């Protein structure tokens, strides 16, 4: 019965094929309960139909074009604002990068042990991969380290 009532609703909406329509109409004629259900559903739909009102907007596409331009502009602005709002962070990152770079540079330079003393070649070989150049710069980190560890001859 529930299934036939569901079909009743589809019948009211004109969604059934001709064979199903015939069957439903026959059932409506034979069954008073189904007939009253059909009338009730029909009344509900006619109630909804009363309130039909169609909106129109003759300038819709014109307004839409303006709106799209605004949105595009806002999107560009958002991107710019994103970088602008992060300008402090960006500057800090650049400065930090420079400091780290400088320290690395000093360290690398320092690692290239500069000595003329052949006895230090062994130490250089052991600790710095044998990169022995002319002299150890006066007061360099490497020189101090080697002196402190008592290995410099």
């Amino acid at each position, binding site marked *: 019965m529930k299934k036939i009532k569901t079909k009743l609703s589809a019948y009211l909406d004109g969604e059934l094929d001709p064979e199903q329509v015939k069957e439903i109409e026959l059932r409506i004629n034979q069954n008073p309960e189904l007939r009253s259900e059909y009338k009730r559903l029909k009344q*509900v739909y006619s*109630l909804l139909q009363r309130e039909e009102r169609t*909106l129109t907007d003759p300038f*819709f596409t014109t307004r839409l074009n303006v709106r799209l331009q605004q*949105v595009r502009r806002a999107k560009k602005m958002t991107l710019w604002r994103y970088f602008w709002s992060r300008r402090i962070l960006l500057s800090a990152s650049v400065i930090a990068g420079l400091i780290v770079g400088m320290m690395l540079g000093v360290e690398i330079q320092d690692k290239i042990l500069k000595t003329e003393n052949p006895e230090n070649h062994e130490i250089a070989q052991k600790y710095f991969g044998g990169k022995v150049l002319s002299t150890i710069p006066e007061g360099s980190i490497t020189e101090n380290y080697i002196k402190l560890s008592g290995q410099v001859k």
Partner: protein
Amino acid sequence: MIPNDIKLLDDNELVRQYHAGVAMAFEELAERYHTFVLNICFRFLNDENDAKDAAQDIFVKVHFALNKFKPEAQFSTWLYRIAVNHCLNVLRSRKRKKWLLVFSGYSGDNKEYIDNIKDMKNNPEHHFDRKEKQQAINQALASLNDDYRTAVILHRYQGLSYKEISEVMGTSVSSIESKLFRAKKKLAELLKDYLKN
């Protein structure tokens, strides 16, 4: 491309043309579907100004999402789905914020307000009867769950077939059949005072 030629193209071809750089193609799509979308919004939101704003928002969304549209799908179905989801989101947000009462009759539409005043002066009894009935219907529709309300609006007011509704809502035709039947039953229950014996 000449404007008259654009009018002859089908929806999916317009989408292709838009991707190829023909800006007019999107305008033509908006021209074709804005009334339909506007009325879906009006049925859901029950406010003319909100409906106009929502319809604009929907087309802005569609414009920026066109690259996600699959050419094998039907443009209208894809558009209606976006429209329905947008309206449901607006309703949810309204409920959350409790700014407005959903489907509560007059909500700022001047023309409707003036019509109401005229109607009230000419025929006071009829006016209140009509107004009350309209409010009852709006409230009954608002009290349906999202699926039932969507099915009723798309079928009853927008004239979509069961098959089209099933595609928009991403479900089967038999499920739509049953949703609409249950929605009508629920409406009959809620509006029993307005039904003749």
